[in-house]
C-alpha cells in the first residue's frame, strides 16, 4: 500500500476539512456552493472572493513525504480585469504554507465580497502581517514553484496549507462577468 494523498479544503471556525473534487471561488465560506454566492464585478475598486485554505491530507503507508511545492499552470484565464488576480499568501523567508494551528476562517460580506487577505484590519490573521506578502499565483509555475512546506512528514496528517483568493477589478479595467474557465492548481511532493 502506498501513500494516499488528498486535497482538502477547510471551512468554518473549527474548521471542517472536506476532500474536494472541485472548488469554486465565491463569496461565502463554502468549498463549492455551485452557482450560489458568485463574485460579481464592482463598479469601482475591487471585490474579493472569500479566501480558500487548501492542504494535503497524508495517509496510507510511506516512509517520508517532503519538499511540498505549489504552482499554477502559467496564466490564469479568469476575466477579473487587468489588475485583478488569483492571489496566494506567501512568507518572505522560509516556506509559505499555513500551519494547521494558524488557520483563520475566511471573512467578508457574504454574497458581496470577501475581505482582502492582506487588509490591515480584516485580513487573514497570518498573511496580513509583517513578513508576509500576497502574490499573484502566476508568479509560481512548474519551473519555479512556491515552497509551501519544508517539513519532512513520516506519519499521517495534514501538511501546511495554501491560502488563495480571487481579486476582481472593474469593467473599465477589463473584467467580464460570467462563469470562468477551470484552472489547474498543483501541489508537488516527494515520497518514499
Amino acid at each position, binding site marked *: *500500500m*502506498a501513500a494516499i*494523498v488528498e*486535497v482538502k479544503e477547510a471551512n468554518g471556525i473549527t474548521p471542517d476539512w472536506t476532500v*474536494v*473534487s*472541485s*472548488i469554486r471561488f465565491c463569496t461565502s465560506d463554502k468549498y463549492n456552493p455551485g452557482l450560489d454566492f458568485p463574485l460579481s464585478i464592482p463598479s469601482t475598486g475591487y471585490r474579493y472572493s472569500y479566501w480558500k485554505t487548501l492542504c*494535503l491530507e497524508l495517509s496510507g*503507508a*510511506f*516512509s*517520508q513525504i*517532503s*519538499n511540498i511545492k505549489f504552482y499554477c499552470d502559467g496564466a490564469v484565464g479568469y476575466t477579473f480585469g487587468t489588475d485583478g488576480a488569483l492571489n496566494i499568501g506567501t512568507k518572505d523567508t522560509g516556506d509559505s504554507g499555513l500551519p494547521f494551528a494558524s488557520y483563520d476562517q475566511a471573512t467578508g460580506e457574504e454574497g458581496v465580497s470577501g475581505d482582502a487577505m492582506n487588509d490591515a484590519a480584516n485580513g487573514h490573521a497570518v498573511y496580513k502581517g509583517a513578513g508576509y506578502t500576497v502574490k499573484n499565483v502566476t508568479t509560481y509555475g512548474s519551473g519555479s514553484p512556491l515552497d509551501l512546506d519544508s517539513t519532512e512528514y*513520516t506519519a499521517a496528517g495534514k501538511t501546511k496549507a495554501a491560502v488563495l483568493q480571487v481579486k476582481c477589478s472593474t469593467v473599465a479595467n477589463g473584467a467580464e462577468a460570467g462563469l470562468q474557465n477551470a484552472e*489547474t*492548481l*498543483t*501541489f*508537488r*511532493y*516527494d*515520497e*518514499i
Partner: protein
Amino acid sequence: MNWVATYKDGTQIKQFDIQGNEHQFKEVNPAELLRLSWVGEKTYTIALKNGEEPIIFRRHTVNIREDKIMSYGLGIKGEFLMLITDGNVEVE
C-alpha cells in the same frame, strides 16, 4: 519503477519481495548500503561509500483531479541528485 537496496554483505531488500509484499524504505539501514537502485524498464543505480547518505524519492504532482508520479529521484546528499522523468535523466 520500484526500489532495490543492496547491502555491503550482498543481501537485498526490494520494495516488493518475492511473496509480493511491499516494504517501506524506512526498513532499509542506510549505514549498511552498498547500492541503491530504481528498477523498471531500465535500472538506475548509485554506489555509496561509507558515510554517504542516499536520496531517493518519487516526485508526485497532485491536484483535485489526479495524483501521478512525475519523476524518480536518486542521489547522494550533498553530492548530486538524478531526476529520472520518462526515461530522461537530469543531474543536479
